[in-house]
């Protein structure tokens, strides 16, 4: 098994080298004479795909057959016996560092093969060179996989294995990872990570060939949206998992690992919008090239922060010197190539950038880039600070930056679609924004009422000494946050209504048919507006659920009938049970009847799971979901007096975050849907 896995990785490595050599040599020989060689370069890319796919198949087979002779299988196999056991069995492939690196390489080989498939009939110079760059990146990953600590096919010490092939030592997947969201979180994130290698490769390819036309952008823009979508999905799934599994009641803690995947997402926002200007106005060319490079460095940094153990974190992996320098070299190298390239090609990549006014659409795109880049750099600097002997920063610092920057950003995002290119004329702008403003005012008023009646009392509960004066910043951040969120929603709705009306008039369609056509024909635009709409909903949810959580810890006697009350919700303990699973894990569950103002709202069944093999306990959180709040119920265990220790949190508006997230995903999916035809060679 082990030899076979390494052999296939070796085959992929050789194929990647062949591809690079053939593509570079083919270009040197010229378009006509080098055609045969270039084609070999494309075919070898499929060879890489076959090699990496085979080796990941070997690893998967080892997990399915529980072949503990592989150390990676011994350490990460799932011990679960639930209905999802087979899922965890497969998910174990990416449960640790070695497997996830192989998974990265596998996705990369698929992206490269997709590019090869799409461009083989054209074999334009930009695509040829970009494919070579992609395979070059692949070489780096495959070599990294042969570093012993990263190698998923390393053998277990013989003394670990019993005569019947059983595992004699303790080992297995971390129980915290045995959850549906966590099985999906790494692969979705990695799709995003690997996908960002494509715009990077084409940016470098365009620099090598010195082609500053919009060809490369048109080839990669949908793939980039696709990658960004998965990066967002991965982040969202991670947040869901943190919320329901970790049991501390939040979904985002500015942990290094969270920041690691958030950074490329931020720069990705800037990249996508730069592509829009590049395609439509021939501007932002250097932005687009450098952001492609920065996004790729960002995903390497993300992998680096998580895999190298450079920053201390709850879930960082073991530190490894060799991988540390290898990844650092990749990051610095990519950045240097980008910087040197753009300096060398400075003249031809000078875009048609016109800033006639601060209120033009161009400048809103510009500030979009500036804010996203600043946010990414600041978060990266704060996250990496302890690695360079600096301070470790907690959520307070991140929040203090994220809130004002976020508010300004969402404001720009909301109004940008209403601005005109070059210069916005007030007499045109005001009639456009009038109705969205009025509607946003109404929504904000409703939210302000909610703030005054529900949220502000929670703030006073959590901070007994607070008053309006000491909480000025907190208060304005909350109210302005609501207002910009509302504006982002109403502007997007307005754009859909007006767009559909116009189309209905021009094409003589009914309003709803026109709306449907608008959404599905002008996909990048309508998908973008829908994404903006979702972001507005998210912001409102973020304000409620991150700034106004009511957190109560309480102990009650362990007898049915015991009662307690949190935030207007009455809990009555009705009993508990404990059962032992076939794998010796012990599941304990408590039952409560929950009512509010005398009306029953359901039952809550929080509990804990004691994992035998891993010798670890996991909380089983119970969440009651309502439109305006979640009730988050945690059973923390029994205290020494034998009482039940409960932790209940009221999380206002948190469903809005998940709902807005869903809208954003749908919007981005529409924007990502490929064009029918990819551009031919310029």
């Amino acid at each position, binding site marked *: 098994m082990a030899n076979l896995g390494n052999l296939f990785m070796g085959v992929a490595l050789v194929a990647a080298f062949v591809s690079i050599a053939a593509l570079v040599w083919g270009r040197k020989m010229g378009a006509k004479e080098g055609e045969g060689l270039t084609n070999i370069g494309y075919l070898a890319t499929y060879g890489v795909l076959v090699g990496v796919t085979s080796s990941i198949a070997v690893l998967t087979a080892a997990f399915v057959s529980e072949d503990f002779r592989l150390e990676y299988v011994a350490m990460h196999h799932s011990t679960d016996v639930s209905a999802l056991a087979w899922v965890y069995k497969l998910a174990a492939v990416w449960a640790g560092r070695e497997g996830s690196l192989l998974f990265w390489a596998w996705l990369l080989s698929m992206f490269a093969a997709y590019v090869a498939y799409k461009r083989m009939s054209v074999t334009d110079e930009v695509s040829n060179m970009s494919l070579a760059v992609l395979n070059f990146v692949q070489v780096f990953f495959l070599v990294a996989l042969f570093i012993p600590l990263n190698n998923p096919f390393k053998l277990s010490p013989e003394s670990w294995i019993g005569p019947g092939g*059983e595992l004699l*030592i303790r080992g297995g997947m971390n129980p915290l990872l045995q959850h549906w969201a966590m099985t999906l979180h790494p692969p979705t994130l990695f799709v995003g990570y690997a996908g960002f290698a494509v715009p990077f490769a084409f940016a470098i390819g365009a620099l090598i060939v010195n082609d500053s036309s919009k060809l490369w952008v048109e080839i990669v823009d949908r793939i980039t949206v696709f990658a960004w979508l998965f990066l967002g999905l991965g982040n969202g799934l991670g947040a869901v998992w943190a919320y329901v599994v970790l*049991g501390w009641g939040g979904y985002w803690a500015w942990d290094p690992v969270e920041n690691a995947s958030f950074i490329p997402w931020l720069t990705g926002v800037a990249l996508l919008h730069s592509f829009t200007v590049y395609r439509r106005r021939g501007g932002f060319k250097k932005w687009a090239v450098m952001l492609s490079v920065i996004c790729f460095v960002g995903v390497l940094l993300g992998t680096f922060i998580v895999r190298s153990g450079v920053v201390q974190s709850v879930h960082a992996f073991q530190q490894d010197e060799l991988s540390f320098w290898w990844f650092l070299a990749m990051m610095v190298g990519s950045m240097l190539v980008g910087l040197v390239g753009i300096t060398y090609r400075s003249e031809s990549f000078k875009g048609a950038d016109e800033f006639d006014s601060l209120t033009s659409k161009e400048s809103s795109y510009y500030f979009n880039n500036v804010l996203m880049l*600043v946010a990414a750099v600041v978060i990266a600097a704060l996250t990496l600070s302890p690695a360079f002997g600096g301070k*470790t920063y*907690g959520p307070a610092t991140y929040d203090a930056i994220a809130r004002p920057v976020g508010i*300004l950003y969402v404001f720009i995002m909301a109004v940008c679609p209403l601005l005109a290119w070059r210069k916005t004329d007030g007499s045109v702008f005001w009639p456009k924004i009038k109705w969205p403003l009025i509607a946003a005012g109404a929504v904000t008023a409703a939210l302000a009422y909610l703030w005054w009646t529900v949220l502000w009392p929670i703030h006073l509960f959590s901070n007994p000494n607070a008053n309006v004066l000491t909480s000025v910043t907190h208060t304005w951040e909350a109210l302005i946050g609501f207002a910009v969120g509302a504006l982002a929603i109403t502007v997007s709705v307005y754009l859909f209504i007006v767009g559909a009306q116009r189309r209905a008039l021009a094409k003589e369609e009914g309003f709803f048919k026109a709306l449907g056509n608008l959404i599905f024909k002008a996909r990048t635009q309508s998908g973008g507006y829908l994404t903006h709409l979702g972001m507005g909903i998210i912001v409102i949810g973020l304000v409620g659920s991150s700034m106004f959580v009511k957190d109560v810890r309480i102990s009650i006697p362990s007898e049915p009938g015991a009662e307690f009350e949190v935030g207007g919700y009455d809990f009555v303990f009705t009993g508990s049970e404990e059962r032992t699973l076939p794998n010796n894990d012990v599941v304990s569950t408590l039952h409560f009847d929950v009512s509010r103002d005398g009306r029953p709202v359901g039952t809550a069944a929080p509990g804990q799971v004691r994992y035998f093999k891993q010798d*670890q306990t996991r909380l089983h959180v119970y969440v009651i979901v309502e439109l305006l709040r979640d009730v988050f119920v945690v059973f*923390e265990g029994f*205290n020494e007096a034998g009482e039940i220790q409960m932790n209940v949190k009221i999380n206002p508006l948190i469903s809005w975050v998940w709902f807005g997230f869903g809208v954003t995903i749908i919007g981005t999916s529409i924007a990502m849907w490929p064009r029918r035809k990819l551009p031919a060679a310029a």
Partner: protein
Amino acid sequence: MNKRARMRLIGVTAIILISVVAIVVGVGAGDGSYSRSVSDVVGDPEAAGERVRVTGTVVPGSWDKKSSPMKFDIRDEGATEGPQISVVYYGGVPSTFGDEVTAIITGTVNSDGVLESEDMITKCPSKYESATGALTIADLLAEGDGVIGKSVRVTGFVASGSIVPPGGATRFVITDEGGSPSVNVFYDGALPEGMADGSQVVLGGLLDEQGVFDAVSVSLSDTEQ
């Protein structure tokens, strides 16, 4: 390009950058914390009032989950003796908290030298244990009958090829460095991750009348890290 628009653009960019830096410096000064060890903080009279991030091992028996806020002591990571810091913790207690767990605590040292914190991360209980203070096999056997049935800590090396599945009277054999003397170990729990032939282990348990060590806990020695 319009010159005035360009100047304004640069101006606004500068304002954004300066504001962000000001916030980072302003808030970060109060919130950021340097990582320090327990003995480092204990030995520093000027630590009072400073915001620090201390990594340490929870002293066994020093805590009481019932008390609110929870109080416990920590000492240097992996150490079994030496300076301690008392911690008063106001946040929710992580489910993995317990004796000898490694905790990363961020907070402020008050004038009594007590670390007040709302922020704690726990790492999984270490599978490693210090062999300091544990008996060698030779020491154990030299104690004679007096040690039988008494709770002791023993350290030794796993004899090659001796590990077998649970269920029998012997789970594995440990020896002193050099291969002798040796003792059979009975244990029916899961063995620590990474334990292999030749690993140095630290056992808690007792020697029974048949000369078999009845282990309650099996850890890898911290020299195996």
